[in-house]
C-alpha cells in the first residue's frame, strides 16, 4: 500500500519499526525460545555442555537479551510476563494472572524447597555456597548419598510431591535449567539456582 505510506508518514515509520523488530529475529530461534518456556524452563546465560564438559553461552539467552523489548512485548501479547533477572542471569515466563491460586505457586515452591534443602545441606557441611555453582565443585556422590539418607529431607520432599525422593527432585530442577548434571553423581547449580540461595542470604542479612 504505497499510497497509504505516502500520506501517513509518521505511522508508516512506526509500522516499519514494528515490522523490523520481528524481522531481526529468525522464526526458528524465537520458536526455540518459546519451546523452552513452554516446557516451564528457565533460560540461563550459561548452560552445561555435556559433550565438552564445560559451561557454554546459551544462544537463546543472548537472543532474548539482545531483543529484550521485542520479546517483552511479544510475550505480553501472549498473556505472559517475560521476567528478566540480571543478577542471576536468567529469564523465565510468568503467567500474568492476578489470581493467587495455590497452583500458581506450586512450581515455584517445589523448586524453592529442593534448592533450600541443597543449600542447607551444603552450608552445614561447612562449605561456601558459591561452590555449589561451580562445575568443578558442586554436589558429589557422597553429598547425594548424605542428602538421600536424611529422613527429614525425604519427608519434606515427599510432602512437596516428590514421591520418588531426591532423584525426582534433582530431575525436576535439571529439567528447568536450575541445576546441571556434570557427571555421574555430580551436580551443580545454574546461575538461577545460585541466585535463589544468595537471595535468601541477603534477605536474612537485611532482616
Amino acid at each position, binding site marked *: 500500500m504505497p499510497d497509504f505510506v505516502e500520506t501517513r508518514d509518521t505511522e508508516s515509520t512506526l509500522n516499519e519499526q514494528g515490522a523490523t523488530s520481528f524481522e531481526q529475529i529468525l522464526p526458528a530461534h524465537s520458536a526455540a525460545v518459546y519451546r523452552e518456556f513452554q516446557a516451564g524452563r528457565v533460560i540461563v546465560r550459561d548452560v552445561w555442555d555435556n559433550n565438552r564438559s564445560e559451561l557454554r553461552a546459551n544462544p537463546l539467552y543472548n537472543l532474548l537479551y539482545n531483543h529484550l523489548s521485542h520479546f517483552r512485548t511479544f510475550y505480553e501479547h501472549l498473556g505472559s510476563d517475560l521476567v528478566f533477572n540480571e543478577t542471576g542471569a536468567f529469564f523465565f515466563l510468568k503467567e500474568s494472572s492476578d489470581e493467587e491460586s495455590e497452583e*500458581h505457586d506450586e512450581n515455584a515452591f517445589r523448586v524453592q524447597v529442593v534448592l533450600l*534443602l541443597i543449600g542447607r545441606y551444603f552450608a552445614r557441611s561447612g562449605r561456601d555456597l558459591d561452590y555449589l555453582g561451580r562445575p568443578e565443585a558442586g554436589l558429589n556422590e557422597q553429598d547425594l548419598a548424605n542428602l538421600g539418607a536424611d529422613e527429614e529431607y525425604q519427608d519434606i520432599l515427599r*510432602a512437596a510431591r516428590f514421591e520418588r525422593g531426591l532423584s525426582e527432585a534433582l530431575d525436576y530442577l535439571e529439567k528447568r535449567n536450575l541445576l546441571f548434571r556434570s557427571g555421574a553423581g555430580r551436580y551443580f547449580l545454574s546461575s538461577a539456582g545460585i541466585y535463589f540461595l544468595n537471595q535468601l542470604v541477603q534477605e536474612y542479612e537485611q532482616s
Partner: protein
Amino acid sequence: MSKRFSTLDTTRLLFEHPKILFRMIERMDRNEARFIRESDLVAEVMDYTRGLGKADRERVRLALNTDNLFRSGLIIDIIKADGERRLVFQDALINLMRACNASLYQELTDARLRGHLVTLRDVRNRLETSSFSDADPDYTELRDDLNERVSQLIGLLRQNVLRMQTISAQLADLSGDASRAPEKYLEFRQNLFEQIVTLYERHIKPTLVFLNPDTRLPDGSNLFETLEAMVRLLEGHDDHSLADQLFRSSISLNALYKPIQAVAQEVEHFLRKTRRGMAQYNAMEHFYGKLRTLKDDTETLSLRRKWLEGGDFARSTGFLVGLRAQQRPKHYAFGQSSSYYQLLFSELELRLSDLRRQSEVPVLQEVAGSGRESRVDVQRINQLYQWLETLELRPTADLVRELHGRLDGFIPGYRFADLLAALNRLVNSPPEGMQVTTTNRFRTLEQAPDCEQFVYRKRRLETNTTDSEQEPDHA
C-alpha cells in the same frame, strides 16, 4: 628473711623464670590495670615453684618476695587500697617482658595512637617558638624529648606489626582446626569471629589510618605532616643532623604501612569469608526452619493434609513465582478435502437433530454427594439410556470424546459418571449396523468446573461394513 638479692640477680632470676611475670602481665592487661595484686603474685609464685627443685624453689620465692622486689627497685610503688596491696612494677621491666612474648604486646588502640600524635604535635609547637641554640637547655631537652618520642613510636608500631602477624597465623591455625572438626565448627567460628573483629576494628584499622600519609584528621595535621613540618623547621635553622634523623624516622614509619596493610587485607579477607559463611549458614537455617514448620503442619492428625502448603512461603521469597509449563495452543483441524466437509456436515446434522429433540432432553438430577440414594441413580441412568436409544451417531475414531461432546453442556446435570454408564451401554449394545472397537490408546478428558479428569481407553465406532468411506481422523 634476711637474705636479699641484688637488682641484677633478681632481674636475672625473673628472666630465668619468665612465666610468672608473663602470667601476671596477662592478668594485668585483662583487668586493664597498671598494678599487680600482691596476693595474686604470691599465689602465682607458690603455684609455679611447686614444680621446682628445693634450692630453686627457695631462690625464686626469695627473689619474688615483695620486700626484695621493692628494695631492688623493680617495684616502684606499693599502694594499699580496698584491703589489698597493689604492686606497681617498673615500666622498663614490664616492657622488656612484653618484648619477650609477642602475645603480651599491647595493641595500639586509636586512643593511644592519638595520644602519641598529640604529643608530637605539641613538640612541634614548642619547636616553633624554640631558640634552636645548642646553648639553650630548653632546646636540647626538646631535642632529646623529640628523639625519644619518635623512637618510642617506631618501637611501638614495630611491635604491633609483629603482634598482628603472629595473631593472624594463630587465627589461621584456629580456623584450620575448625574445618577439620566439623562438630566444633560453630563454636570455633564464634570465637574466631569475635577475636578477629576486635583485632581488626580496634587495632589494625586505627593503625592503618594513623600510618596513612593521606589521612585527613579533623583536629589537625596527621603524623607525616607533623614530622615534615618539624623537619622543615629544623632545616630552616640549620640543625641538619636532627632533621635528617627525623626524616629517616618518617621513612621508617612510612615503611611500616605496607606490612600492616598486608595484615589488614589478610584479616579483612578472613573476616569477610567467615562472616559470609556464617551469614550463609544462618540464612539457610532460618529458611529451613520455616520449611520445617510447614512440614510439621502436614504431620497433624488430619489425614487430608498430606502436602506442604507453600504458597505463602513461595511468595515471600518471590523466586520464580508464576513459573509453569505453558500449554501449546490447540490446533484447529481445518481442512479442504471433501471428506472434511462431509464430516463437518454430518456432525452438524447430528447436532441439529439433537436440537430438534430438545424438548425431550432429560434433566438428570444433580448429584448431591456420596449419600444419595440408589433409587436416584437408577432413575438417572434410565433417563440417560432412553436418550441414547434415540441418539444418532456417526462412525468415529474416538467414541468417548464424541459422546462427551454430545452430552456435555446439552444435558443438564451431566457428569463423567454418566459418560461411563453411557459408554457401557454402547459397548454392550451398539447402535444398529455399528460396532465398537476398544483400542489400547489412552486419552484424557477434562470437565471444567472442578477440573475433574477422566482417563479412558479410546474406542472406535465403526460401521459393520468394512468399506467405510468416512475419514474419522478429524473428529
